[in-house]
Structures are given as C-alpha cells and as structure tokens.
C-alpha cells in the first residue's frame, strides 16, 4: 500500500500538487477531472502491430463510450515504459483513461492488473453515476495487458515453429 503511494508520487502526478480532494465549493466536475480533460496526458496511439505494444479496446454500450488504451512494454524487463489512450465519451471517462495511462507507466505488467477502478474514482472524486467510467478504465488496462500477452504467445509460438522447421 505504501509502496503504491510512493510510486504514485514518483510518477509525478503534478495535477494534484495544490488540489485537495475535498473541495469546499460544489462543482459539477472535480478539479482533477477538469485538469485531465483540459490537459490530457498521453493522448495518441502506438502502432498496433508493434510486438511490444498491447492494445486494450473497450466500450460501455449503455452510454455509447469507447476507450482505447495502449501500453508499450520492455520485453526484457516486462515493465510498461509508455502508454497512450484515446477515449470518446464523457469527461469522467476521458479523465479516467488519462489517469490510467499515467499510473501504468513504469510499473510491471502484473502490478497494473491490481489497479482498481475504485482508486481511479477516488482520485477523481467521481460521483456514483460515473463509477462505470473508472470501471471502463480498469477493464481497458486489463485488456491491454491481455492483448500484449497473447501477442507474445503468438510470436513465441511462431519462433518455436521456425526453430523446429530449421532443425
């Protein structure tokens, strides 16, 4: 738990420098959400066909949201070195995926699988009606890791097949 908090600080979540969670004045969106919406980090795409990239593509049909989260993994260390996202949806969905890309950077793949939507929601002070947006981000992370692993299995399988034919 403490390690996680230290890691979060290490990732340099500058948006939270001067912003307390509980805001005295009632706002529609929490400042963290507005920040991630106005200054989204890591918007963009990696090449889907890059073997070191895992792509998670998820959707929330109830509200018509679609979220793409990509991770770039260092194959030697199994660490996520970079992340990108592209989300079409409400401010909470965009902010959730932006936060997700920040949190996965520098972590091992197994670690990011433990990121819970409740943590994202708490960070953004999401109201109950928007909880599913953070759930979408959690699912996107898992989908990206799953995609990467499946790709590795394929490439390893192909490599092994190549070796046997050569032998």
């Amino acid at each position, binding site marked *: 738990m403490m390690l996680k908090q230290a890691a979060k600080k290490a990732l340099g979540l500058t948006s939270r420098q001067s912003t307390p969670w509980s805001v005295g004045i009632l706002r529609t969106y929490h400042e963290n959400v507005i920040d991630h919406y106005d200054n989204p980090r890591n918007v963009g795409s990696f090449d889907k066909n890059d073997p070191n990239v895992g792509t998670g*593509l998820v959707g929330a*049909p109830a509200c018509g949201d679609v979220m793409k989260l990509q991770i770039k993994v260092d194959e030697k260390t199994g660490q996520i070195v970079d992340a990108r996202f592209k989300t079409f949806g409400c401010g909470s969905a965009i902010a959730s995926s932006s936060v997700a890309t920040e949190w996965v950077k520098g972590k091992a793949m197994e670690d990011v699988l433990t990121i819970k939507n409740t943590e994202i929601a708490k960070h953004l002070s999401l109201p109950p009606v928007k909880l599913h947006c953070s759930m979408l981000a959690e699912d996107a992370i898992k989908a990206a890791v799953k995609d990467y692993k499946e790709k590795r299995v394929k490439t390893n399988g192909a490599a092994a097949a190549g070796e046997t034919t050569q032998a």
Partner: protein
Amino acid sequence: MKKTKTMVASISTLIRRTYPSTNQCNSLATIQSQTQLPRESLQHHSSAEGRLRFSGRVFCSESGAGCWNCGEKAAFLFCNSCRSIQPVDDSVDYFQIFGLEKKYEIDPGSLEGKYKDWQKKLHPDLVHNKSKKERDYAAEQSAKVTEACRTLTKRLSRAMYIMKLNGVNVNEEETITDPTLLMEIMELREAISEADDSTSLNQIRSQVQEKLKQWSDSFVEAFESQKFDDAVKCIQRMTYYERACEEILKKL
C-alpha cells in the same frame, strides 16, 4: 347457466382467433364486462369520443375496480361516463395507452393524434376547478402519456422499452470488448472529430442513419424470433450510432 358459459366460451375463442396477440386475461375481462353492461352503454363506449378507437378492443381498468367517482367499469385513464380522470395504473403500458399492439414496428405518425386527444382530457390545465385529488391524477396521467409518447416515438427508446416489457433489462453498465464493433465506432468517432465542414459531417450523418435503420430492422428480426441476446446487441449498436449522431449535431 350452461348456455351463458358456452356463449362466453365461444365469444372468447372468436376474439382470440381474430386478435391472436391480445392478452388472454384482458379479453376475458372484456367479455365479462360486456355481458354485464346493458347494450346502450356498450354502444355509448364505442361511438362516444369516436376519435379514440382502439382497433376494436375495449380496455377496462386492470384492477377491475372501475371509476373512483361513479363506479363505471370501463374507465381507461379517463371515465367517459362522469368525465373524471383516473389514477395512474402501473400495469398499463405505453402501447395500451396508444391502443397499439405490443410490437416494435409502429407508425410513429399515429402517435401524435392520439397524444393530443389524450391531453385534451387529461391535461392539468383543464382541471383547475376539480378536487385536489383529481388534479394530482391529471398531473400524473398527463406526464405518463407524455413519457409514453416520447418513448415510443424514437426507435431506440422504443426498442429498449419493449425489451423491458419482456423482462430483458438492456441498460446494464457492462463493458464490452467486441473488437469489430469497437473498432468501427472508434473510426467513426475519429472521422467525426476530424471532419471540419458541414458537407462531410452531413455525409457521415446520413451513413450513420442508414446503419441505424439497418440495425433497427435487425432488432425487429431478433426480437420477433425471441433471440434476446442478439436483440440486445442490436440495441447496443443503435446506442453507439445515436451517440455518434448527437456528436455530429453538436458540431454542425
């Protein structure tokens, strides 16, 4: 006694044969009320307020209690006998209000006329000199009729409503991972965000509306063959396309 029973039985078979989709309980209750009412009032029902013909079917209050004011048996939303507004009956669904069969395919043009007819009787503005109780009934009934019209007019909300009537709740917040669908929607939304002028936006819009019609038809197929899983998928797609249309309209 036996004669009446056989008469009732044969009438119910006749009605069941003519209107196969009619709710069984409804038709039997209708018959019983018909045999009890004198002939004159029966004709009064079908001819008075003649504009409100419910395709030959007489609806009576599901609770069977009749009008709260005069006890008239067949008081549906409004009692034609004493002209008092009835309390909302939750078992009455939107299709019944508009006298439509519980089918997805309806003629949306037919809604407006009946909507206006109902509001002429139920609207709160018309009951200022009535009791508080009746004014409350007016407010609730009028709101329900408005909501019914709204729900049945748009394809997507109608689809979701008819699924709900069949016990399938569509609006659950589950995540989907279907790559084909999501890829298509991603590309669509990207195209919309990149489009700058109204020509290209309108072009995309007509494409999306094509898709909406196409998936609406698929929904009908799936729903009528009771393939509710497929029907849900159709609704999901329609939601995505509707959302895309909203984004286009925002940009235009």
